[in-house]
């Protein structure tokens, strides 16, 4: 049976679905006829940027693993990183930005759900979730509402589905007002010999839809994610999916049991573009085809058209390809857990996806053309006009603050720096009893049950740096993630990225994207943390402004012995505070180089002076890597008792955080040949504050010499205040309890201030 006598689709109709004329003509060429209405719908979602990566694919080839996958066996749902002992960690991060700006609670919840399905459809048991979030300033009621609802939605879903949320990051900047970023990340543990694949192998095998019934929710969600937000967005709530963590919880158990039965040939989550995407991708990957009947798809609403069924993005659904004579066994497993599983078709050998509605053939398209052959575009890249002036901003005009204590307290109270306890307390962090280091230190650390091993996991990105230099900013995101892992005693082994950018069709927007990816690709290879999976979210802008380029990096690290992990808080009175840094000074040189340059893009400039300018701090990746080596050695040998990365807010904030977390003070002396503000607040890279017992200083010195990094004794831990003298003048003296309350109460205070506005 084949489709004939189709009439041209009106340009107005296919344009509304997001296709341009050239793309429409390409469909006509591929099919050798005009498409049916259902077929246009299928192509429009699969060829959207969200699914087809039509703008980003040429750039993503910079990532080694991506290139290898595209040219080889194909992309899997989530990359797997080997951790030895026959075990691997599946890891992925994904954005849910556009829907979250419209319906924050449900969208944030849905974001986690999709991530987890990508993980467990590989046969991996989900063990942890993280998130990377960006909002506008909390002084705006709307931003408070979004923050409140996103956190509640993430907690609602994660807690009920039964996966602990062990880490994350949140920043607040004006550019995210109206276009918040909600990136959810998940990790799963898998035995290499039990990996399930998203392939429709074996002609004649049965195709099942498993999980929730199909409704009209989320139709054209993928297309929605590929345009800018505007006033109409509010009315697009039907594009937003509703998640059900309870269904997902039983789906996890049932799916893992079904995969373990050995009767499941292939399985794929239904995310963006629903049945369309899962049928064509699994067929294309196996070089097969598929015949399905939409009448066999259980629906939750009456009278759904084939178009709606094929495009629905209802949550908690999966496509499973099952050995044809084992369908009863597999459906029995799902039935035990109360999960619907229905045969909707079978695997064919002709490379086509045939969609029937009863006896009527409503779509018949080459699987590969939908899955792999989305047209790609080489867009124009041009450096943004704003950049040169911002980078060359003369930071020497910036005055010193009137009072350094007040400046420090103001920075600690800045919501981007302040304690995120208000948020993470709403997440179950300790479920599954693997959490060794919970949120609030450097990286989260989990033990791997049944082994001595542990993993560290972290997500990082300073969008402001990326705005000021996307290449350097992206590299710093990678370096900082690896540094946070090293501070925890974990060596970086792999990464996942969520690339949040503005409109790529603007040359300056595309330039930011291209430069950031170039930086990421280089840095990830350098730090031996290949990107194994990822997600691209473009068009993150409103008519007023685009978001900062925000390539969020999720990174996994490995600890051979989880007992040898390290945390950020000062541990004991009398311990010596030491700064380990990448810069190695020449003989005889006493003072560190002037750090004035590194005030560029700093939290200090933003909070105290209201300036976002300068170049981001310089990153020397060679130096950075040596610092990681020294930390791992020092922690592994039991020399280093605490380690905390110097990042946002600079050295003074790092010291304050180690004091607050340890509930103990420190007495510190710095030398500087430039203004005290730079000594305190510059965000110079490749630096870590550690504490050691006095008698172990010699051992530490041996380690730093072996790794050719610099160590500077800053002072001692003790007392109930933090004091810092710069060039022998004490300019900071604040009680730890004051530091603590200022840092801890900042976000709760903002959230309680004047409520929220929907």
């Amino acid at each position, binding site marked *: 049976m084949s489709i004939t006598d189709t009439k041209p689709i009106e340009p107005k109709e296919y344009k509304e679905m997001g296709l341009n004329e050239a793309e429409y003509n390409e469909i006509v060429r591929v099919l050798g006829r005009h498409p049916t209405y259902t077929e246009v719908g299928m192509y429009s979602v699969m060829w959207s940027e969200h699914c087809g990566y039509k703008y980003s694919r040429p750039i993503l080839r910079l990532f080694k693993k991506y290139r290898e996958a595209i040219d080889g066996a194909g992309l899997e749902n989530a990359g797997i990183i080997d951790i030895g002992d026959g075990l691997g960690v599946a890891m992925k991060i994904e954005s849910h930005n556009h829907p979250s700006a419209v319906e924050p609670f449900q969208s944030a919840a849905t974001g986690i759900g999709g991530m987890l399905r990508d993980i467990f459809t590989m046969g991996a048991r989900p063990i942890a979730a993280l998130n990377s979030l960006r909002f506008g300033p909390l002084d705006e009621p709307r931003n408070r509402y979004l923050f409140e609802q996103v956190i509640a939605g993430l907690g609602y879903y994660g807690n009920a589905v039964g996966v602990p949320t062990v880490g994350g990051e949140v920043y607040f900047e004006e550019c995210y007002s109206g276009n918040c970023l909600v990136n959810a990340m998940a990790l799963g543990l898998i035995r290499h010999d039990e990996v399930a694949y998203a392939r429709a192998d074996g002609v004649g095998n049965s195709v099942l839809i498993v999980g929730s019934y199909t409704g009209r929710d989320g139709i054209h969600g993928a297309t929605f994610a590929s345009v800018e937000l505007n006033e109409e967005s509010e009315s697009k709530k039907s594009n937003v999916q509703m998640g059900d963590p309870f269904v997902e919880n039983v789906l996890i158990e049932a799916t893992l049991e079904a995969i373990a039965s050995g009767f499941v040939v292939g399985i794929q989550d239904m995310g963006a573009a629903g049945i369309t995407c899962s049928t064509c991708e699994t067929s294309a990957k196996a070089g097969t085809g598929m015949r399905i009947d939409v009448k066999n798809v259980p629906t939750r609403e009456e009278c759904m058209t084939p178009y709606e069924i094929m495009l629905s993005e209802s949550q908690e659904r999966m496509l499973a390809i099952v050995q044809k004579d084992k369908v009863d066994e597999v459906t029995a497993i799902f039935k035990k857990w109360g999960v619907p599983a229905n045969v909707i078709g079978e695997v064919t050998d002709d490379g086509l996806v045939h969609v029937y509605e009863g006896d009527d053939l409503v779509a018949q398209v080459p699987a590969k053309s939908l899955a792999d052959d989305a047209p790609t575009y080489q867009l124009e890249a041009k450096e943004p006009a704003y950049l040169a002036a911002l980078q060359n901003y003369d930071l020497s005009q910036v005055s010193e603050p009137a009072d350094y204590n007040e400046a420090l307290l103001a920075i600690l109270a800045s919501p981007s720096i302040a304690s995120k306890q208000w948020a993470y307390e709403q997440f179950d962090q300790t479920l599954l009893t693997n959490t060794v280091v919970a949120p609030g230190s450097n990286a989260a650390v989990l033990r791997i049950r049944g082994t001595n091993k542990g993993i560290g996991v972290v997500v990082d990105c300073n969008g402001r740096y990326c705005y000021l230099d996307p290449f350097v900013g992206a590299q710093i995101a990678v370096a900082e993630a690896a540094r946070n892992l090293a501070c925890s005693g974990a060596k970086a082994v792999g990464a996942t990225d969520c690339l949040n950018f503005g409109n790529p069709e603007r040359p300056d927007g595309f330039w930011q994207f291209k430069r950031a990816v170039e930086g990421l690709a280089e840095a990830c290879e350098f730090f031996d943390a290949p990107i194994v999976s990822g997600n691209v979210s473009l068009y993150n802008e409103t008519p007023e402004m685009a978001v900062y380029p925000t390539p969020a990096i999720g990174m996994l690290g490995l600890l051979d012995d989880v007992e040898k992990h390290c945390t950020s808080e000062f541990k004991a009175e009398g311990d010596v505070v030491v700064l380990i840094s990448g810069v190695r000074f020449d003989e005889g040189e006493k003072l560190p180089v002037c750090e004035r340059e590194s005030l560029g893009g700093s939290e200090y400039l933003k909070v105290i002076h209201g300036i976002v300018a300068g170049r981001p701090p310089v990153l020397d990746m060679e130096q950075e890597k040596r610092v990681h080596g020294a930390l791992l050695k020092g922690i592994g040998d039991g020399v280093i008792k605490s380690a905390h990365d110097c990042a946002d807010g600079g050295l003074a904030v790092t010291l304050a955080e180690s004091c607050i977390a340890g509930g103990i003070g420190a007495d510190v002396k710095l030398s500087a040949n430039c203004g005290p503000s730079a000594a305190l607040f510059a965000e110079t890279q490749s630096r870590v504050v550690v504490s050691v017992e006095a008698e172990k200083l010699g051992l530490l010195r041996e380690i730093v010499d072996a790794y050719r990094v610099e160590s500077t004794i800053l002072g001692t831990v003790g007392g109930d205040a933090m004091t810092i003298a710069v060039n022998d003048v004490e300019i900071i003296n604040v009680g730890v309890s004051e530091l603590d309350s200022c840092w801890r109460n900042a976000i709760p205070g903002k959230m309680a201030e004047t*409520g*929220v*506005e929907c």
Partner: protein
Amino acid sequence: MAKVNVYVTLKPELLDAQGKVVKAALENLGYNGVQDARVGKFIEIVIADSGNIEKDVDEMCRKLLVNPNTEDYRFEIEKG
């Protein structure tokens, strides 16, 4: 067939944490006249008309839909 609307609310003497949040949020939006806000549940049941609906629904409430220690309930039946 009959449609039954069941309304479940927390007993008035108990702190309604959600209601408290809603009230504060409404006040923050400038609705200063808001005296109280309580959050409850609304359950819609479609049931075959057995002639015993009232008794059956009351039993459903006590067995499942309502925790009689902490919640009050009422329901209305629309026949037809």
